[in-house]
């Protein structure tokens, strides 16, 4: 069974190499594709030096488009499982086994690593925590299932999820919307507790002013999603 790790990276030359090596150490059966989202530093070179395949986007397309590039690669090359791990090092590849288990056991089509289910201590600033809580509440309401960490980008999907996300993936700040998308396509979603690290290098791409735009945009998208119809992508039954 072919499995791939999708590692989106934007100017992560200091961490991406270590992330790739840690993934290989934690799970040697995973092929690793780094999607370089138009970095201006040595991200591509560092990822290649660590032994990953690298897909280089010609310019910055945003995390949604970058991750979808990875899913399209997984779809076109017949992968059965895909895992998303950020290139900034905040996701611990040591948690991969926990993330992949529900998919291997066919208990889930999509598994989300949640910071807020009790594994490890994760400090978030109050405002962000409040924003995540609010999003979690809205997403839970729409998908009719408890979601504690809708913005987590540490996630795994099986072939159904790969085909879906390759064909349709939200833009800009995609994670919360992707959960709703998966749920509307009747994918089984499971959250597992994972410990995350605080960022070791670089800054989070979300600044104060952007978080407001983020909340409004995501809320609009979530609201609209309730009224949308979702045709199944080609390969889905």
């Amino acid at each position, binding site marked *: 069974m072919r499995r791939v790790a999708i590692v989106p990276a934007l100017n992560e030359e200091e961490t991406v190499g270590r992330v790739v090596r840690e993934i290989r150490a934690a799970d040697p059966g995973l092929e690793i594709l780094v999607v370089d989202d138009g970095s201006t530093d040595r991200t591509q070179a560092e990822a290649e030096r660590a032994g990953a395949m690298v897909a280089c986007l010609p310019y910055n397309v945003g995390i949604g488009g970058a991750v979808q590039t990875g899913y399209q690669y997984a779809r076109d090359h017949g992968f059965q499982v895909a895992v998303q791990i950020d290139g900034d090092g905040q996701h611990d590849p040591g948690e991969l086994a926990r993330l992949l288990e529900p998919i291997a056991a066919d208990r889930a089509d999509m598994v989300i690593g949640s910071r807020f289910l009790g594994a490890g201590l994760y400090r978030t600033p109050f405002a962000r925590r409040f924003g995540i809580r609010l999003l979690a509440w809205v997403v839970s309401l729409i998908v009719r299932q408890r979601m504690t960490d809708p913005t987590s980008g540490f996630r795994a999907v099986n072939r159904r999820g790969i085909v879906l996300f390759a064909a349709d993936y939200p833009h*800009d700040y995609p994670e919360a919307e992707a959960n709703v998308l998966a749920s509307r396509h009747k994918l089984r979603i499971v959250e597992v507790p994972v410990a995350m690290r605080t960022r070791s290098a670089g800054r989070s791409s979300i600044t104060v002013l952007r978080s407001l735009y983020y909340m409004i945009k995501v809320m609009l998208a979530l609201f609209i999603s309730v009224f949308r119809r979702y045709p199944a992508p080609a390969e889905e039954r």
Partner: protein
Amino acid sequence: MTPIRVSIFAAIAALLLLVVILELVRSRRLQERYALLWMMTSIVLLVFALWRDGLNVLAETVGIAYPPSALFLLAALFILVVLLHYSTVISELAERNLTLAQRIALLEQKVKESDVSQRSDSS
């Protein structure tokens, strides 16, 4: 004072605009990021169409004798902002288009080169 008919007509027009925007987003002909400015426009217009005292105060503050004109001014200003925003979006798209064309040209050249070298290898 604003004639009541002006208020009603303006409110209906703003509401219609809002509905059209939401439907365009729902049917995926308009991305959320480009819908937000339009939504702000329609909501502000709707508010001042219904909140007649607010419109009077606004008109008085900027020195407009006939309050419905303030509604016009507001609409015109928002359209200006939307247009300016689109100009920046078009500039970005043009830049990206150029980058794509250049990337494709160089990729094609690379593919041709490796074709040629493969053929000479096999002969």
